């Protein structure tokens, strides 16, 4: 099996770009350029610099692919007689169209014949082009954004792309990671590069002490509510401040995952000891790990570096959050009342959600609960949900499903006995996959259902026609499953 190459330790010395400032440091008055994390990683990957008439050609270290957004790209390769330039920098899995149940005879109940064909097409394409693939027989099969970090393929300082907007997840490791369309999947397969102008940078500073019971999901929902669903359009975000420094990697991934829900293609957090200890001894971890870590540590934004925009949020102001509308920016504290509609679109959102302005969101009856997705399907998420479910039952009016992010997460959760806690509570414990986040595999709600979901998008009809999605943390989702109504998890006692 091929190992990924590792690029570190060499600064390219490219132009510092428009949002770096030259300043004198304290060491002998020498001119140094203060750069952001984004600038540093970007500069390392410029193959051909941006000009007035042409975008930059940016090298891609890791290309993740899955069954939904790759088949037409392989078709283009075939039509043009092109090879995959770096199969050793490409990793594949199947996640979106995969069933999360297994039939009694061991077969998998695909939602349509086309879904099965799509999965088989991915497996055939990657076989033909020699791409490492985590298919049905791999312990690492799972949601592509759970798999990459789990294998240690995701590393600080990398550029990472995938035909999936939640590729921003990998920014949690200090990588520039963003979603691309299928045309660009083809570009990367053939050339290992993409063309793009450099985005602007925005610092999201969250400092202070998070209150008890406030989770990373609540932090990111609060950020999106603050800057808006389009607030990050055109920007690369960097999450900064003690709240992120103190957060685990699972938590950081939850935060970076939803950068795109504020319109930002990419969101990053500086790599630190938490990052290094997470990546140690994983499959693709560099052999000279100390040297790699020393290099990665140098990527952090320099003191004095200037962002195009800065946002400051006080940690103390953040409460457990839920959404009440039809996009992720429509979020409020779970103990708040539903705000009045600002315009006709807001009004239609409230109509769709069958919610009334001025009413409390807590107490709204729930039909389904989904715990999973690339946002919240990792061990910490499952442990948090299990802590609420332990010794309790899912309310009789609710169907709850728990879908681990990968085969490995599933196995680890079962080792800890979490599956037993879920099934004892009356929740279903499923096979790994994207599942009900977008319902491509047939895991959807019924029209009119209110689903409390740990996923990332509450768009109209995303979880099935007429389904009303309320985004929340695993804790809030589990508490709502138990009580049968939207519930503030701080009101649920958990065993220490």
């Amino acid at each position, binding site marked *: 099996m091929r190992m990924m190459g590792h*690029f570190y330790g*060499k600064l390219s010395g490219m132009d510092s770009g428009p949002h770096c400032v030259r300043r004198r440091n304290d060491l002998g008055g020498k001119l140094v350029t203060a750069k952001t994390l984004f600038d540093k990683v970007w500069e390392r990957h410029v*193959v*051909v610099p941006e000009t*007035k*008439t*042409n*975008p930059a*050609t940016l*090298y891609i270290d890791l290309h993740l692919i899955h069954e*939904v*957004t790759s088949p*037409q790209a392989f*078709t*283009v390769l075939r039509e043009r007689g*092109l090879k995959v*330039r770096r199969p050793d920098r490409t990793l594949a899995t199947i996640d979106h169209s995969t069933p999360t149940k297994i039939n009694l005879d061991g077969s998998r109940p695909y939602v*349509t014949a*086309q*879904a099965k*064909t*799509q999965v088989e097409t991915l497996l055939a394409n990657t076989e033909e082009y020699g791409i490492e693939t985590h298919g049905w027989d791999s312990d690492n099969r799972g949601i592509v954004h759970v798999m990459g970090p789990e294998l240690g393929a995701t590393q600080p300082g990398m550029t990472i792309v995938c*035909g*999936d*907007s939640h590729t921003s997840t990998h920014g949690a490791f200090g990588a520039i990671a963003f*979603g*691309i*369309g*299928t*045309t*660009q999947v*083809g*570009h990367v397969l*053939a*050339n290992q*590069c993409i*063309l*793009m102008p450099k*985005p602007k940078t925005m610092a999201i500073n969250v400092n202070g002490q998070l209150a008890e019971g406030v989770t990373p999901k609540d932090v990111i929902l609060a950020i999106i509510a603050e800057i808006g669903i*389009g607030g990050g*359009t055109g920007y690369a975000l960097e999450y900064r401040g003690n709240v992120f420094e103190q957060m685990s990697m699972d938590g950081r991934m939850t935060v970076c995952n939803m950068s*795109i*829900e504020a*319109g930002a*293609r990419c969101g990053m957090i500086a790599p630190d000891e938490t990052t290094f200890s997470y990546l140690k001894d994983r499959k693709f971890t560099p052999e000279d790990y100390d040297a790699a870590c020393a290099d990665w540590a140098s990527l952090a934004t320099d003191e004095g570096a200037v962002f195009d925009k800065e946002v400051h949020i006080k940690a103390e102001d953040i409460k457990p959050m839920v959404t009440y509308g*039809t*996009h992720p920016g429509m979020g409020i504290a779970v103990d708040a009342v539903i705000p009045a509609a600002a*315009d*006709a*679109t807001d009004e*239609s959102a409230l109509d769709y959600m069958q919610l009334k302005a001025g009413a409390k969101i807590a107490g709204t009856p729930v039909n389904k609960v989904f715990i999973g997705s690339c946002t919240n399907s990792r061990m910490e998420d499952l442990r948090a949900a299990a802590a609420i479910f332990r010794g309790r039952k899912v309310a009789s009016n609710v169907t709850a499903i728990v879908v681990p992010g990968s085969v490995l997460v599933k196995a680890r959760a079962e080792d800890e006995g979490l599956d037993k806690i879920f099934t004892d509570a009356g929740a279903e414990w499923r096979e790994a996959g994207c599942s009900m986040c*977008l319902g*491509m595999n047939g895991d959807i709600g019924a*029209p009119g259902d209110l689903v409390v979901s740990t996923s990332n*998008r509450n*768009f*109209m*009809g*995303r979880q099935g*026609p007429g389904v009303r999605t309320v985004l929340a943390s695993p804790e809030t989702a589990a508490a709502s499953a138990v009580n049968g109504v939207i519930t503030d998890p701080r009101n649920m006692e958990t065993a220490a």
Partner: protein
Amino acid sequence: MSFQPLKTVTSRTLVLPLTNIDTDQIMPAKFLSMTTKAGLGEHVFANLRYDANGNPTNHELNSEAGKACEILVAGHNFGCGSSREHAPWGLTDYGFRVVISSEIADIFRNNSLKNGLLPIVIEKSAHQWLLDHPGEEVTIDLDTQQVRLPKNGGTYNFEIDAFSRHCLMEGVDEMGYLQNQDDAIAAYEKARG
């Protein structure tokens, strides 16, 4: 060449005034399991165009007049959410060549440019005029980067990067351009080990 060159477009507009129309609305996930691009125009905005039983609604998108429109005008922040290129594939297969809004999400914008669909972000007053005057005949001139509104609506400039403009006007895609950079890419790979 992967799409028809786009220099000028003169067409009536089809207006969808809702804000934050996401790519799930443009192309619902159940249509993403295809392994080709063919026929996605039938499914574009499926939730507006078909009822629960799959029968066509009387939405303008299903009318002959609607199907003749090459310019889509949408509310603020069009194309947010999923990176699915099936959204612009569906819009172009339906017949749209231009989409105009006061804000267009990054990934959707990027995907559109690669499929001969011109995304135009226009200033608020012109956007409002377009929302208020559905079905008017509007001219888009990519060479001069202008939107010309009828009935004294005025002429407005729009921004587009030089490279994307060139690719749209000549009908070229980026694959060939990247292939021509093979030496630079190889040198980069060698330098970094």
